[in-house]
């Protein structure tokens, strides 16, 4: 078991199985199909992401360096949260990019019944250590336990 500390972008506590993307998450490409066709598991539709493609993202501790792609990214995350198809939490090894930041803040401010803790700046070691299926626990203060 290992502990990492990051910055709290959107607060909350949660425990969930890890899902790891070593490359940037293309938010639109990953979520669009799931949101469009009512896939409650939010199966990743991004063919360019070998780590995630075809895997359910909803309810996972999504571990990633950053998000990439269209500037619709933030509103796509917002929609995933509004439609209850979001990851349990999003854990960034790098400082959060402006598109993911928008999604994290929008859901936190505008959706009263949504909770998706978001932590950033967890460091490269975090992404090297965490593996798919490991149990990840996020605490209010930005401490992330992986075991």
């Amino acid at each position: 078991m290992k502990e990492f500390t990051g910055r709290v972008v959107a607060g909350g506590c949660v425990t969930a199985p890890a899902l790891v993307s070593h490359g940037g998450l293309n938010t639109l490409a990953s979520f669009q199909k799931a949101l469009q066709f009512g896939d409650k598991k939010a199966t990743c539709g991004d063919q360019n992401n070998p780590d995630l493609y075809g895997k359910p993202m909803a309810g996972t501790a999504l571990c990633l360096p950053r998000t990439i792609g269209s500037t619709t990214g933030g509103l796509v995350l917002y929609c995933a949260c509004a439609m209850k198809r979001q990851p349990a939490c999003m854990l960034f090894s790098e400082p959060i990019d402006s598109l993911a930041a928008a999604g994290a803040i929008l859901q936190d401010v505008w959706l009263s019944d949504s909770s998706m803790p978001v932590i950033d700046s967890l460091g490269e070691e975090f992404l090297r250590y965490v593996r798919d299926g490991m149990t990840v626990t996020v605490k209010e203060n930005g401490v992330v336990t992986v075991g």
Partner: protein
Amino acid sequence: MLLTQEQQQILDGGKGQTMAKIMQTLVRYGELYHADAMIPVTGKYNHLVTSFGLKALTPVYELMDQLIAEGAVSGTKFTADPRPLDKNVPSSFLQDIIFNHFMYSKQDFYEEQLQKLGLMEKDAFTCTCYMDEVGNTPEKGDILSWSESSAVVYANSVLAARCNRNSGIIDLMGAICGFVPRFGLLTDEGRKATWIVEVRTTKKPEAQLLGSAIGMKVMEDVPYIKGLDKWLGTLDDEAKAYLKDMGAATASNGAVGLYHVAGITPEAVEQGEALICPDAKVYVIDDAELQRVYDSYPVIWKKKDATPKLCFMGCPHMSLHQLMDWTDRVEAGLKAAGNKKVVIPTVFTAAPAVIEKFNATPYAPRLKETGVILSYICPLMYMNNPLSAKMPVITSSNKLRTYTSARYYTDDEILAQITKGGN
């Protein structure tokens, strides 16, 4: 972050709870990046990325309804990204059903919302809003609340306006509030280059390939590009179109929001190498490096040697100059190949206002004669569904390649394919 009395009042609910939440959203966004203040948006017009009535984005339209109901509309008029549908673009019966009844079933509804929120005019849909014909061209130093990565990087780099890479919704909220948090590309420090890119190619590099190489290397950093002025000359229409395409590739293959080109872009002309940080890293791009990048693109077609069924040019939308130039090139290519019409269904895309201007030139009937279809559509939105993803589509857009299953070819290769055929 230091707020003015007016801003604090909004945050405290002085203009209602909806405005307070908008301000809270922007303040939290800024605080993440250590913004020191909220500064006024000074651009005459805004630009939004969300132009499509995608059913999947229903929660966004509900939020828009909430804003409209509360009177929280944009303080400035705005343009928006291209429409996702055009009946002139080839599509199958099944695609038509999927597009019209499932994916974009909210298009009309959403366009009505945009009009209420402040759309510049009913056809103000393009990713190249900064074209003269469209009229949303920011002035140097303007503070913007735009989204659309290709438009943001163009506004910052070629026009020397100041804008961060905002997400959809944040773009609108900045315009409603009239303020944006000052950080990143809005600051002098954030506009300094942390990379030097040395272009050492033996011929003018393909814009889309050069942008891709730079984007993948520097990611979200600011590059200062040397050696490109030799190929571009001055910042004329041709160079602007080149930088549009190169910039879109840097922004989509990486996350570049600003680049400087020595001797060409306004800030590089004014400040020269003073724009480069002392510890900037160096990336040399020669012919071999461009080839390496080209060869690295995965072909994700199921049948890798499939005959292309469609070709898209114009992501981002083509300029008037490009439409004219390509008319000449397609005509010449067809003549050399002994063909009268393009052999692969081909769509050129441009802003409605650019198409209108083009249609008034003698080039328009000539292009039509070649069989090329001219459309205002967003190729990305056409491709973003399982049916289109299975089609073997070719393009010279590196942005389209990155986000969809479309296969990239250089301009010359595209020309050969659509006029002569063959892979």
